[in-house]
């Protein structure tokens, strides 16, 4: 079953004030994934 986007969800997605905080939260979260680093996979301690 396809989940369509409800009215309240759409309000949440498009409300500039809520989305401003989401923007900050997203920026930090993405930064953490990116800055979380990277490495090899071939040694156990990588």
């Amino acid at each position: 079953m396809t989940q369509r986007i409800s009215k309240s969800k759409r309000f949440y997605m498009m409300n500039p004030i809520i989305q401003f905080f989401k923007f900050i939260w997203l920026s930090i979260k993405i930064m953490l994934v990116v800055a979380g680093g990277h490495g090899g996979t071939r040694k156990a301690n990588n």
Partner: protein
Amino acid sequence: MSKIVILGAGISGHVAAAHLRRKLSKEHEVLVISPNSNYQWIPSNIWVGIGRMKSEQILFPLAPIYRKKNIGYKQAKVTTFHPEGDIEVAKPFVKIEYVNDEKKGQTEKVTYDYLINATGPKLAFDMTEGLNPGTNKAYSVCTYTHAEHAWQALNDLIQEMKQGKKVKILIGTGHAKSTCQGAAFEYILNVEQELRRHNVRDKAEVVWIANEHQLGDFGMDGMLLSYGNNIMKSSEMVEMVFEDRGIKWIIGAGVNKIEDGIAHYETLDGEYHTETYDFAMLIPAFSGHGFKAFDKNNEDITEKLFKGFMLVDADYTPKPYEEWSVQDWPETYQNPSYKNIFAPGIAFAPPHAISKPRVSKNGTTISPAPPRTGMPSGITAKLVADNIIDIINGKKELHHKGSLGNMGAACIASAGYGMTKGSGVSITTYPIVPDYHKYPETQGRQLGKTFGEIGLAGHWLKLALHYAFIYKAKMKPFWWLIPE
């Protein structure tokens, strides 16, 4: 003194050149060879293709910046590789052909101590009969000139729709093995939003066509992601968005021929179909550039350097999907035969796909090739630069590693342009190549680090990244603080 030659000034070549120049003293030479005189921030081509940005906003000329930063630059394309030199030249070199006006057609042997091949993909339109941007009503947004043409055609169509014409718009992949579904996904959502902005949405049927067996595969075997308090498959997320926007879809489809307003395709169940359209944007197959390599006696050694794309430290042993592992993926992007040659970004040959390969009943492979997006392209370029600097400084081992199996990626897919009406589908994935041993319960990815978000904030973020990355690429003060 060392000479580092970088082929290509796209995301990876430019990142490598910038970091090398910043970290190496002036006695070392950094030289970029690239045929396009401009740097382009490719992700924003989507907005050029809907007329919301001009090409000039997403590009800048390379020569003045390279001059200012003491980076050498030749507007030329590499034609052949000579990693052992030849009978005349003792040092390794690449043969280049100039493409700019004054020197057009002239060739030169450019020697190097270290070579970074960052030539990305060849946009292989020729692999699909009749697919050639701007002909047969089919367009591309892969370069800024393609995107400009796409917008001209789309705008003309919008004007006709305003006069009452009903149309069909087809967007997706133009070959059975295309990659870069993400870019097509962004474009279809942006086009759909623009149609609404122009009050002609009711005049258009908007159709997605892709070689993915499931929506949201993105050439990455799909993903399980956190979405708010829920856990959802990327297929469910994309389906939700398409349903919401009234976009129809055709999947498991390998487009094999384009005629004027007609796309011919084969599906995984072995059936042959056609889809008519008034405007199409189809991503072509990406292939290697078909470079040749020669040893010092001028014997062909192409297979030591290339398997389509450039060979690096990956495990290329052919094996079935069930035996694929993250360890197959390269870590240093160093060519195994010639240790002073590296290939970051899209230029390296992947060991295999990421998505499970699928073959139609007729034996045609209809399955996405592995994507290599901007972020990993930048990260792999920086680690190659750091390893070269280490070698120059006397280190014997390559300490900087970055496998796509141990690296996250953020894909902020634009879903519509506008400061208050825009939207973005933000998806982060960790790791890019699923590690089914480490994360067996969650489809090879770490939940929490693999998450999705939809909304206006995604558009702002994509726009912020546009300005940040152009600032970084222009090497303005403290540019290096902005991560890849």
